[in-house]
C-alpha cells in the first residue's frame, strides 16, 4: 500500500540502527480518564517505551479478555469517543513529537468516524490497528484507506502460509504476531511455535515482526524478544493502571516497564 513515511517508520529505523528491540505498550484511552491517559503516555515513554498503542474503547471487543474488556467499559462510562482520542493525541504531541502512536480498536468505531480518520494524521496519529478486519482486506472499499497512516496487520498462529504473504504485501510499519490462540491476557504462550512462525513471516517480508498477547513477566518479554523484533505489553499494564488509578500513583507501573525494557535489550 502506498503511504507516506511516518514517525513509526523513523522510530523503527532508529531502533534497527541501534540494534534495539522495540517495546510497545498498550493502554485504553479514557481509562480511568483522558487526563490520566495523557499522564501515563508520557510516563510510559520516560520509562523506556518506544511505541504507544492507544486502545479505542468499543462496546463489544470480541478479541479482548476480561481485563481489557473491563477497561473498555470504564472508558465508555466516561463517553470516550474517537474525536476525544484525537484531541488526546494532539495534547500529547505538545510535549512529545517523536514517539509513534498507534490507535488500536474495532472496525465499527473507525467506520462510524471514517471522515475523522482522514484527518487523523493532523492530530499526530501515525497508525491504526483494526482488530476485526482481515489483513488482506481492501480498506479502500470501506472508505478508510489513508496514505498518511500506516495500517498494522495481525498474523496469528492459525494464519495459513498463502495468507501470510498476502497480508505482508498489504502491510506497513510492522507485523503484529499474535503469540497465542486466545483473547488478550490469556496465558498459553508457546515459545517454540512462536519462533517457527515468526521465522516464516520474516522469510516473507522485510518489515519487523513484533510479538504480543499474553506477555506478563520480564522473563516472558526477554524470551520473546530473542525471537522477534519487539514486544507488545497490554493486559498486565491495563490491570496495573486499574489498581493504581485511585491513588494516582503510577510509579510502580513505570518501574515495571523499565524492568521490561531492560529485559528485552539485555
Amino acid at each position, binding site marked *: 500500500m502506498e503511504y507516506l513515511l511516518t514517525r513509526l517508520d523513523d522510530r523503527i529505523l532508529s531502533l534497527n540502527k541501534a540494534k534495539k528491540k522495540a517495546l510497545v505498550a498498550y493502554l485504553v484511552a479514557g481509562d480511568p480518564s483522558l487526563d490520566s491517559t495523557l499522564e501515563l503516555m508520557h510516563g510510559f515513554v520516560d520509562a523506556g517505551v518506544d511505541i504507544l498503542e492507544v486502545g479505542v474503547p468499543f462496546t463489544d471487543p*470480541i478479541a479482548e479478555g476480561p481485563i481489557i474488556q473491563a477497561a473498555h467499559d470504564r472508558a465508555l462510562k466516561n463517553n470516550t469517543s474517537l474525536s476525544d482520542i484525537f484531541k488526546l493525541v494532539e495534547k500529547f504531541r505538545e510535549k512529545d513529537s517523536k514517539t509513534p502512536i498507534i490507535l488500536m480498536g474495532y*472496525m465499527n468505531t473507525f467506520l462510524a468516524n471514517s471522515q475523522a480518520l482522514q484527518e487523523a494524521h493532523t492530530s499526530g496519529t501515525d497508525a491504526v490497528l483494526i482488530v476485526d478486519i482481515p489483513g488482506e482486506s481492501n480498506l479502500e472499499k470501506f472508505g478508510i484507506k489513508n496514505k498518511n497512516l500506516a495500517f498494522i496487520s495481525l498474523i496469528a498462529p492459525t494464519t495459513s502460509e498463502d495468507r501470510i504473504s498476502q497480508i505482508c504485501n498489504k502491510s506497513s510499519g510492522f507485523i503484529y504476531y499474535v503469540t497465542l490462540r486466545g483473547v488478550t491476557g490469556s496465558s498459553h504462550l508457546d515459545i517454540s511455535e512462536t519462533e517457527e512462525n515468526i521465522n516464516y513471516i520474516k522469510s516473507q517480508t522485510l518489515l519487523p515482526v513484533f510479538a504480543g498477547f499474553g506477555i506478563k513477566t520480564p522473563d516472558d518479554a526477554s524470551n520473546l524478544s530473542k525471537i522477534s523484533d519487539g514486544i507488545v505489553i497490554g493486559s498486565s499494564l491495563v490491570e496495573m493502571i486499574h489498581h493504581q488509578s485511585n491513588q494516582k500513583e503510577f510509579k510502580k507501573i513505570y518501574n515495571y516497564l523499565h524492568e521490561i525494557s531492560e529485559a528485552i535489550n539485555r
Partner: protein
Amino acid sequence: MDNLTDLPNSDGFFGEYGGKFVPETLMHALKELDETYAKLKNNPKFIEEIDQDLVQFVGRPSPLYFAKRLTDHYSGPQIWLKREDLNHTGAHKINNTVGQILLAKAMGKKRIIAETGAGQHGVATATVAARLGLECHIYMGAADVKRQSLNVYRIKLLGAQVHAVDSGTATLKDALNEAMRDWVTNIEDTYYIIGSVTGPHPYPMIVRDFNAIVGRELRKQSMEQFEQYPHAIVACVGGGSNAIGIFYPFLEEFNVALIGVEAAGSGLMSGKHAAPLNDGEPGILHGAKSYLMQDKNGQVIDTHSISAGLDYPGVGPEHSNLKDSGRAKYIAVDDDEVLSSFHLVTKLEGIMPALETAHAFAALEHIAKNYKSNQHIVINVSGRGDKDINTVATMDGISLD
C-alpha cells in the same frame, strides 16, 4: 444484477452487507468451514443423512395449518400457519443444528459451543450434541438465564454446560461475544454452532440454507392446499433465521410479499427496542456488516424486547440487503401488542406461540386489512410458548409460585 438467490458472493457479501470481520485467529477456521460446506452440501450422502434426521428426528415436514378462527377474527385474508412450533424441541432452531452438527462431525471437532437468547437454540444445540455424545457449552446472557429458566434447565438436563454472561447488557449480544472469545481460544477442537443468520461468512449462508427447508415445504404445501403461492409471508426477525428460512425459496417469486417483524420493545420512539432494520444504521458487529443499533460514535446501543430471542442490536446481513433492495419489508410491533397477540392466538387457535413468534402474529393487526378474503397470508410460527409463561404471568401481574 445477480439473482437474490445467488448471494452471498464468494467473499460472503450480500450487496454491501456481510463479510468476515473477525480477529485473525478465526480466519482459518472460517475458511475451513466454507470449504467443508462447499464440498458436502451437494454430496448425496450428506443430503440423505440430513433429510433422514429432518424426517425421523425433527418430525418434518411441519404442517401448514388453516387458522379458521383467526381468519374470522380479522375478516380479511385467509390466515395459514407454518407450524415450526411442532418440531422436536419446539422451534425452527433445530433445522439449523441438525445440519451444523454434521459439519462439526465431518470436520472432526470434539467440542461444541453456541450462544442462545431465548434458550431455544441452546436446547436445539445441546440436543444434537447429546445425540452424538459431544461436549457442549452454551453461552447465555445472565438476564436471559433468569427470564428463560425453563430452557436453561432443559439444556442442563441434556448434559450441556450453561455459562451465564454478565458483561455488557447480559443478553444475546454479550452471549455471542463470549462464544466468539471461547472459539478464538479453543479454535483447534471446537465447532461454533451459530444460532441465527448472523456472524461472519459463511455462517449467514449456512444457517439460511439449513432453514430454507421451511420455505421449500411451503412452496409445495401452499400449492397442494390452496393451489397458489401465498400473497404474503410474515415472520419475526431477531437475527433473522426463521424469516430467511421461509423467505429464501420465494425471493424470486415477486408476487409473494415478504414481511419481517422486528421488536419495537417499548416503542420505536422510546429508543428502547431491538429494531435495527427500522431504526438503525449500517455498521459492523459480530463479524458482519449489517443494520445495527448504534450511536454516532459507532458504539452499540442497549436493546430492549419482551422476548429474549429478538433482544439483539444487529440482524443478519441478507435481511439488510433485502431491505435496501425493497424485496422484503420490515415493520416493528411493541411489547404490548405482542402480549395481546399472544393471548389472542392462544385463545382463538389453541396454539400458544413463543413471544418471538407472537411478533409475527401481532403484525396482522397492521396488515390484515390490506388483503381480501380470497388471498392467503402465511405466518411462520417459529416456536411454541411454553418457555415464556413466566414472563407472560409477570407481565399480567400473576404469581406462579
